[in-house]
């Protein structure tokens, strides 16, 4: 299954230097388990951040050179639309669920999926090929350790959850051997309206028009409003029942104690244990 991993321009949380985000390293691990020839795709001003992906299991890397903090979306969509129409069309596109070090909205994979008219499945912890050809089985992480197993038709976009398996260890040799292909965004960008039309999303094209074609997606950030972050305390979690007095039982009969405990658990919705006593 031909697989492509979207690699963002992540920043290290402490040093602020470009690095490969851990989540995307996990995505590379998942991709490499499905496709030994998995490739990475990055739109940005250089490959410093994402080179390490080759050492974690990618066979090659495509870098679309865009300038500075330009929106990577048109470049990504243009490249992917070309690739999907080509001979070696990718079937699975993996991405992280949130970026790291940028605006961190997690919208890029959704926008890519919508522009290309592909389905998207979020928060994958495990993926494997489905029984029918052209399908994929994705395990989604849900609250409390539950998983949802969905089968999707390929091609599809899948975002990866931090609980997915640990990434493969880094190896220097493969990183040196890996081939990086560079592309310029100009030619591909011109294709965008056609792609948007092809996917049948009139809203997107309309929106691009009325903002003069410059805005390509929802971004809530006005760079001028940026300011240093102020840490705000989270809410305290306090014990459900206040005043231990009422709920203190000194020396109850063990059977009575057991009943109290199970009733407390059921009343607070923690667990259900079969039928309740009448």
């Amino acid at each position, binding site marked *: 299954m031909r697989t492509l991993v979207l690699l963002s321009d992540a920043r290290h949380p402490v040093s602020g230097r470009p690095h490969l985000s851990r989540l995307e390293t996990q995505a590379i691990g998942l991709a490499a388990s499905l496709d030994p020839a998995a490739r990475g795709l990055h739109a940005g001003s250089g490959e410093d951040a994402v080179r390490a992906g080759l050492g974690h299991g990618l066979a090659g890397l495509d870098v679309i050179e865009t300038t500075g903090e330009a929106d990577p979306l048109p470049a990504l969509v243009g490249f992917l639309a070309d690739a999907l129409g080509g001979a070696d069309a990718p079937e699975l596109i993996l991405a992280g669920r949130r970026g790291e070090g940028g*605006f*961190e909205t997690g919208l890029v994979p959704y926008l890519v999926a919508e522009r290309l008219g592909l389905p998207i499945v*979020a928060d994958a912890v495990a993926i494997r090929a489905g029984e029918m050809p052209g399908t994929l089985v994705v*395990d989604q992480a849900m609250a409390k*350790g539950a998983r949802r197993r969905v089968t999707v038709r390929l091609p599809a976009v899948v975002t990866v959850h931090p609980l997915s398996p640990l990434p493969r260890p880094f190896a220097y040799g493969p990183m040196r051997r890996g081939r990086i292909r560079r592309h310029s965004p100009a030619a591909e960008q011109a294709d965008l309206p056609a792609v948007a039309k092809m996917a049948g999303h009139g809203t997107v094209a309309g929106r691009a028009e009325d903002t003069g074609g410059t805005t390509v997606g929802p*971004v*809530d950030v006005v760079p001028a409003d940026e300011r240093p972050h102020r840490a705000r305390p989270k809410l305290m979690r306090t014990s459900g029942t206040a005043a231990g007095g009422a709920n203190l039982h000194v020396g109850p009969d063990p059977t009575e104690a057991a009943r109290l405990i199970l009733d407390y*658990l059921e009343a607070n919705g*923690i667990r259900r*244990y079969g039928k309740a006593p009448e």
Partner: protein
Amino acid sequence: MSRQRRDPRAERGIRTVESRARPRLDVARRESPAASGRLRRDPWREWAASLVDETYRKRYDRSQRQMSREDAARFLAARSDIEATAISPGQPALHVVEEPAFLIFAVIEATGGRLSRFDRQVFGAARLLADADAGGGAVVAITTGEIDGLGEAGADRMLALPSANGGQARAAALRHAVETLLPRHVIFAEDGDSADLARRLSVALGDDLMSGVEHLTARQAVRPIRNGAREIGLAPPRLMTIGEDRVKPYAAAPCEARPIDASDFEAGADPAILSSEIIPGDPASLALSETDFVVSAGNGVSDIAAFRELAAAMKGTPGASRVVCDAGLMPRSAQVGASGTVLAADCYFALGISGAPQHLQGIAGCEHVIAVNTDLHAAMIERAGLAIVQDAQLVMPALLALLRERGA
């Protein structure tokens, strides 16, 4: 030039306040409002408003409302004819919005038909925006089925969208609802399916999404960017997801949660999703940091085999205090506390644990704590929401027997 003489008697007269037993002087009272233009706090009135019930002993509930200026004004008006108990959280009245000036959608998950902490916080955020300034907004709970306690959580209306197969179909139904009812804000939890739905809706509407809001007031919403080094603050946009434990849940008078007719909102199926099934988590193999319910043994438990059996029967993840792990009775990965795992669980069941500070640090996030201990004065007994002073060796077999009897 002559100055006007002060008349101390007249000044006293102005400042005297009515009170039950003896005359009281309010030395701070002025004829004109304070120069700052802000209303003064009246601590007497605040205390009176938080009086829960005046029985044998007075009981005040100060946790529920920090007196805001609007509240103070309301109580000022209310005090003359209603008793404090009538507006206290003890016996709250129903909050009804007949003709909403605008709508606010609160999209909740309520897994298993129950509102979670996070769901209540989403309602808290929605209520905050609905009641801001002049108020008059109505909070619409967007659910996928019947859920208890929506009114208490702060929902004026309830819209049960038909349950859909797959996120795309759910987003389409929600988009239809947003386009028909035109809410001023749509609020989601930055978690799981809600976060997914928010992004799908944002893309479908072509509208900005403010994700992971950390600080929310009626005037601005703030979220961190660039690995938490910087932040941005904007007037609350239409689509927002809020971070966990960032907004207080709603705690005043219950609302009515009147159902809205949802027959117009069709849910299709997502053609790309071929099948979907839910596999519940197995508590025995879950990591301590991921599970929702931990059954934990301390030095007071001598029969570890029975404890393991109990944890499995109660469908909880086994944990232990350091003493037990040091003794080699439980693996190190089961240790709860400062030098073990800090839990994110909802419930913690402690058997024979004294509650040393290093241990309590690990369970600071647990909402419900149950303690079984022979020592009435153990710190764990004080921390617990249900405290049982009894021998753990006797309670464990009793629990196992009762679980067997209930067929679990």
